[in-house]
Each structure stands twice: as C-alpha cells, then as structure tokens.
C-alpha cells in the first residue's frame, strides 16, 4: 500500500541514533550509499548490512516498520535481480532452454538486490530518526560553504525538508482519491497498458489539483508567518557531541575494514 512508504516519515523515539547530529547521520547515510555502490563483494555487503542492522537496532524503531519501507520496492528488487541472473555469463549450474543460471548470476543478483535494499534502508533510517527541520538544518550547514558561490542554501534546505515531509501526506491523499474513484467503478488494476494509463487520469488530476491547493495554502501560511523577511535565524538544531565523534570514528574504521575486504577479494 502507498501508505507504507517510510521515506520522509519521522518516528519519535529516544535513542542514540535520534540524538546524533543530523550532519553525522547525513554523512553516515551518504557514506553507506557510496560504499554499497563502490564495493563489489558479497562479504562487504554483509558487513554493510550488519552495520545498517546495528543502526536499526540502536534506533529502537520497530523492525517491521523498516521492513514496511522496503515493501513498495519489492517488485523492483525482484525485477533487477531477475535481470542480473539472466544476463550474467559463467558456467551454468542449471539450464532450461535458453535460460541459464550460473553461480555468477546468483551472486550478481544478490549484490544488486543488497545494494537497492541497503540504499533504501539507510535513507529511511535517516528520515525516520531525524525530524525534517533538523534534517534541513543539517543539509543547510553541510551546504554552507556553497553560500560563497551565491547558492541560496537555506531556501534549498527548506525545499528539501518540505518535500520530504510531504511525501507521506501525498501518499495518503493518493490513496483516498483511488478509493473515491474505485467507488465510481474505475478499475485501476486491469486491462492493457493504454487502458491502465487512461485509468490513471481520474487519480492523477485530483491529486495534481490537491498538491497545488496544499502548496498554495502552505505558502500563504508561511507568508503569514513572515517567511522571506530575509533575517531568518534558524535555531541551532545540531550539536556535534561525543557520540558524533564515536560515530565518525566507527565510520572511518568501517571504511578501512571494507577497504581491506575489497583488497583481498
């Protein structure tokens, strides 16, 4: 269900992960994504998975909630895995006509699936444990050096935060609209490609209108609260503390550890 999307939702818990500086978490999540993309061995993936799992446990967010976030991409994961299996070369261990499955294919499939899953999970963990405002502040602070190049970093950070926060609201809205259209006999899940594409219109148009209406109302509400005065002083939401230092040390050690694994593979 659309409602299951976890990216952009924040879950209040008191945990070490929640209390970390947003910058540490952003760097951590980015690093995780970079590592999953650059490492090529299953052993490295297992190590990153272990680290992500450890972070998930530390976050005290219910495990099935994180799993729910993966659910919407399950078909995509299966599809890419299937493509990697079929397209891989190597000695077939099982063959049926033109369909050949090799050990290389299986490990390639495992690798791409792991990459996707870890990527989504680390991004979800970031937003699940960091309130959007704090996240914005973190992004803004990380981007601050760009200000010298006249990049409006604070506005960009605000846009990122509002976008992230809006995703669950729009998912809810889309679901309500789909219910309303189904109640009028619209069939959203049958027929060929064109029939389906046409069936999207009754959902897409009201959603589009609703998104614009809400965006308009939100901008009025922001104007009413003096946004744009140009003197904005966001409260300092980030405090780089001892735990952040430990977190960075762990990340550096982890990178070194992965480098060794990759080197010997």
């Amino acid at each position, binding site marked *: 269900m659309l409602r299951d999307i976890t990216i952009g939702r924040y*879950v209040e818990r008191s945990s070490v992960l929640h209390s970390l500086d947003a910058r540490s978490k952003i760097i951590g999540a980015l690093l995780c994504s970079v590592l999953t993309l650059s490492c090529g061995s299953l052993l490295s993936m297992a190590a990153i998975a272990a680290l992500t799992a450890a972070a998930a446990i530390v976050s005290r967010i*219910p495990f099935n*909630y994180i799993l729910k976030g993966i659910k919407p991409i399950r078909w995509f994961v299966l599809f890419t895995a299937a493509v990697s299996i079929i397209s891989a070369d190597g000695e077939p261990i099982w063959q049926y006509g033109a369909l050949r499955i090799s050990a290389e294919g299986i490990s390639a499939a495992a690798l791409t699936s792991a990459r996707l899953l870890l990527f989504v999970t680390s991004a979800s963990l970031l937003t699940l444990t960091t309130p959007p405002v704090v996240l914005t502040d973190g992004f803004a602070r990380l981007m601050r050096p760009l200000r010298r190049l006249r990049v409006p970093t604070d506005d960009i950070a605000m846009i990122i935060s509002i976008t992230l926060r809006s995703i669950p609201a729009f998912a809810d*809205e889309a679901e*309500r*609209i789909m*219910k*309303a*259209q*189904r*109640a*009028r*006999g*619209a*069939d959203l899940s049958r027929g060929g490609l064109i029939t389906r594409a046409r069936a999207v*219109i*009754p959902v897409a*148009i*009201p959603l589009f*209108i*609703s998104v614009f*209406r809400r965006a308009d109302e939100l901008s009025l509400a922001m104007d009413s609260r003096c946004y744009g005065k140009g003197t904005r002083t966001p409260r300092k939401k980030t405090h780089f503390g001892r735990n952040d230092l430990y977190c960075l040390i762990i990340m550096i050690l982890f990178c070194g550890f992965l480098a060794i694994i990759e080197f010997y593979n």
Partner: protein
Amino acid sequence: MIELRNVSYSYRTISGSTAALENISAVLPSNKVTAVIGRTGSGKSTLMELIGGITAPDSGTVTVNGLDAGKCGSSIGFVFQYPEHQLFAETVYDDIACGPSNLGIRGDELEARVTEAAELTHIGKRLLRLAPFELSGGQKRLAALAGILAMKPSVLLLDEPAAGLDPSGRRLVFSIIRSLVSGAEDMTVVFVTHSMEDAAEHADEILVLNGGRKAAFGTPSRIFTDEKLLSGCGLGLPETVKLQKELYALGLDPGEMLDVPSAFGSVCEMLGRCGVSPKPKGNV
C-alpha cells in the same frame, strides 16, 4: 437494508494493530436515513468503508440487500468527504457521466442518467457545461453527489455531506437526501456527521460509535434524550435539547424538543398550559 453482524476490524500500525471497530451488530433499514455519529477516531469512517465494500472486515459479515458488501459493486454509492477527490473530467456533464460509463452504459441511456442525476441534485444546464474546478464548494459537492446517483445505487453512503457548507447549501443537501428515501424505489441512506443538530433533524435512525464499539442505536428521540450516553461518548447535545434541559432546570417541562420545528410545537403547547396565549394576528 444493511446488516452488520459481529463486525470487527483492526488497523496495522507501527506498534502492532489497533482495533478500529469491535463487534458491531446493527440493521440499517431501507427507505430510511441513518446517521452515524461519534468523536473523531471512533470508527465512523472505517464503518462506512466496510459497508461500502472498500475494506473487508477481519471478522463478522456486512450484507447489503442480502449480498456481501464486497460483491455489491455499483449498487452501493459512496460520496466521500472531499468532492475534489472525485472530480476530474473536462465538464461537470462528463464527470457525472463517468460513473455510469464505467459500468458500460452508453448513448441515450447515459444521457438520460446524467440528466436525471443533475435534476435530482438541482444542477442546472449552465453548470453542466462548466469545468468542475470552476464550481463553488457547495456546487462541487452536488456534482460529486450527482456523479454517484447517476450510477443508480440502492444504498447511498455519505461522509460528512454538509461539512464546510453554508446554511443554504446544507439545507439543499439534506432536502435532496430526504427526497431520495421518500421515493418509490428501494433506497438506504447512511451519513456520517459531526453535527448533532443535523443528525437530530435529518436522520430517522442514529448509530452512536464510541472507541470502535456500538454505544447505541435508535431513533433521534431516544438517543438525544440520553445525555449520559452522549457525554460518555464525548458528544454534545443539539441546541434545542440544551434548551429543553435549561427549561427543566427552571421548573418547566416542555416535552420533546429534538429540532427547531419540534421545539416550537412543544414550547407553544407548554406556554398554553401555563396560560400564555398568542395575541391574535394583526397585532404583531
């Protein structure tokens, strides 16, 4: 007729599942208007979705005119709270036609259905040619209602049909609802409302929900005279019932006062008993 038998439903959330409805049983009669009242989160919307066959109960059965609600298809019409969620076509006419044409109706029959639905909901020829987005809030709601009526449902479910409407729009919506059940055809109407006045004035039967359970089911005169029940469910009294209580506290007993017309009757009678009589007309 809608029969609910031991209906339960739970939502699955982060921290396991929470019961939205627990063991609800009731029979909502045909050619009657039933109002569902209760606080936010009492399970009203979930109940409507179960009756509408949009969600299936975890346990128990929901039957609509003898059929399982999930298998009723277009014989159940559901008007959601926000008409904006439903309207999408280029003109109001096309939008009303969308439901019946999804059912495979074409040509003259389709035109007849749209015209009839527009007449029922007081949508004039001029409005039919407009884009749905050009309509006012009240007109949008009527267009959404017409879009459902064009499918000729025998059960009509409405979520907050009058929310956000001005008094004249509210009167119109409820007069349309009344005309639907007083026709010759078999029709069951159920609406959800926050307004005690609307429930007291426009419903024949009231279903009160509290924390996912059935707190009461009965006629307005039974429900709205039971203050303990209503306050226990976090609901208020209709203004006229409040007046009745205030009068009682002052030592006067006017009898039943569910809405303004019945309050007028009761007060006149009581004034008569107390020896207050109206001056003859002409002196006013």
